[in-house]
């Protein structure tokens, strides 16, 4: 055991439930949800971010084990010792958390003999981020089990525990230093403990944008696929332009490391030099390696030589591999190799004729063309040309998002005869035969 207090040097930590309780009434998704909310208790007030991963490389591996299980803390059947976790450090067990599989793990149960999994998990994750036991009877870090601590959606850490974790990691940006720690301001409770990553649960219709009627905040080609971002959601198209799902996915659940309170993004592009993905929002930007934000972000857009206020659009033109940024009527040309803005920018009237003077976003595509999006329409500039192709603008919803009637997603939108193939691409979907259009990218 590393001498306490130690702490994590990084801020983005991955976790994974490797083994589940074998004889508990709690389903796997509930166990994962409870772990999510128990970690969220600590990430809500510190700069730490936790995200669930599937692989065996998680920083915090969570296991339900019995009796002797290869560490110095054998469990002892029901009661007695119920769980433990390892402090941060450079040993491979750092952060790992073990629960005694002989305990009757419960959630929202009046069973006096049950062990409330959420309460114990909050305590153990306190160890996993570096907090040791304390003698304060009201602290979540005192060593004895004291029963359930209430609903995970409304649980607030005792003040003494907040101060101790702030001493280790500082205060999360969104937690105002002037607010009273015990202030009674209403907190918007997230949904009931549902699986944080349960794709089958559909968000409430009320706030989900509809792909056939919306215009987009950002569009990007990433690893050969197209991503359309709107608010906190995005749609994803495979390389042959088929929608992965008619329902949008939630941005922050896929792109790990974007602040939860971000209400949308302004522009996204994939960097040609290292294939990292750059997200822009206001004055800040994030660089992602695959789907995880890198340490040290967000940073100010002044890194690019861009003025405060951020950008409307960003894309890398296949013709010269330069990155173009757009803001209002102005555009910039950025050289990714020298990491400098080309002289003479910002400038007015971008090199492509026939495209609108202001944009929502732009992207390159596998056909070598550049596509410019604004409102519900898009313009195509074929490869090596400097003017929009004739016949544009066309409808984004119809040509990219499998909507037949751009004004609404009528029954025929997903199928039926007459679905219109986007220009330049023959329609391989089954819609003429009345099949449902569907695709699976992995």
């Amino acid at each position, binding site marked *: *055991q590393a*001498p*306490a207090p130690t702490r994590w040097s990084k801020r983005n930590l991955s976790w994974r439930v490797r083994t589940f309780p074998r004889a508990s009434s709690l389903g796997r998704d509930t166990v994962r949800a409870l772990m999510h909310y128990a970690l969220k208790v600590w990430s809500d007030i510190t700069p730490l971010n936790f995200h669930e991963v599937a692989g065996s490389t998680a920083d915090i591996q969570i296991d339900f084990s019995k009796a002797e299980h290869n560490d110095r*803390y054998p*469990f002892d059947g029901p*009661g*007695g*010792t*119920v*769980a*433990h*976790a390892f402090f941060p450090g450079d040993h491979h067990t750092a952060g790992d958390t073990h629960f005694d599989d002989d*305990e009757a793990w419960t959630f929202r149960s009046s069973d006096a003999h049950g*062990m409330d999994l959420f309460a*114990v998990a909050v*305590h*153990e994750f306190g*160890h996993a981020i570096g907090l*040791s*036991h304390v*003698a304060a*009877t009201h602290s979540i870090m*005192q*060593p*004895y*089990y004291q029963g359930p601590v209430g609903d995970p959606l409304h649980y607030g850490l005792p003040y003494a525990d907040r101060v101790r974790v702030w001493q280790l990691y500082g205060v999360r940006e969104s937690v105002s230093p002037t607010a009273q720690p015990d202030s009674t301001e209403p907190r918007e409770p997230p949904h009931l403990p549902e699986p944080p990553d349960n794709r089958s649960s559909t968000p409430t219709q009320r706030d989900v944008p509809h792909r056939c009627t919306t215009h987009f905040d950002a569009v990007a080609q990433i690893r050969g696929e197209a991503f359309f971002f709107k608010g906190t959601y995005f749609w994803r198209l495979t390389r042959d332009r088929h929608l992965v799902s008619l329902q949008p996915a939630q941005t922050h659940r896929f792109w790990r490391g974007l602040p939860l309170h971000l209400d949308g993004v302004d522009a996204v592009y994939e960097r040609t030099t290292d294939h990292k993905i750059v997200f822009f929002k206001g004055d800040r930007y994030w660089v992602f390696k695959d789907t995880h934000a890198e340490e040290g972000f967000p940073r100010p857009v002044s890194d690019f030589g861009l003025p405060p206020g951020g950008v409307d659009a960003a894309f890398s033109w296949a013709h010269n591999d330069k990155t173009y940024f757009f803001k209002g009527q102005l555009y910039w040309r950025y050289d990714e190799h020298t990491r400098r803005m080309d002289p003479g920018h910002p400038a007015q009237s971008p090199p492509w004729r026939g495209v609108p003077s202001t944009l929502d976003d732009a992207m390159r595509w596998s056909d070598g063309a550049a596509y410019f999006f604004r409102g519900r329409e898009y313009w195509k500039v074929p490869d090596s040309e400097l003017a929009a192709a004739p016949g544009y603008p066309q409808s984004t919803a119809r040509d990219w998002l499998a909507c037949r009637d751009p004004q609404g997603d009528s029954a025929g939108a997903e199928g039926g005869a007459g679905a219109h193939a986007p220009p330049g691409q023959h329609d391989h979907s089954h819609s003429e035969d009345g099949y449902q259009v569907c695709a699976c990218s992995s």
Partner: protein
Amino acid sequence: APAPRAEDLSLGVEWLSRFGYLPPADPAAGQLQTQEELAKAIAAMQRFAGLEATGVLDEATLALMKTPRCSLPDLPAAAPFRRRR
């Protein structure tokens, strides 16, 4: 207070060394400490738990030792007691 039963005493000593109030038992020599050291360890545990620090394995202390809890020690592993020459 009545003297604790033998099994309570051994439970107590094992519990105290497991959670950092007594040095871990030497696998060869086992556990050997004076009454004074044991009383100090019990009092430390009672203070940490918010009980009255009597230094005796009384009922409240034994009951708490049977309460479900976290496996980690409360104190970094106790340094071996320095014996008075």
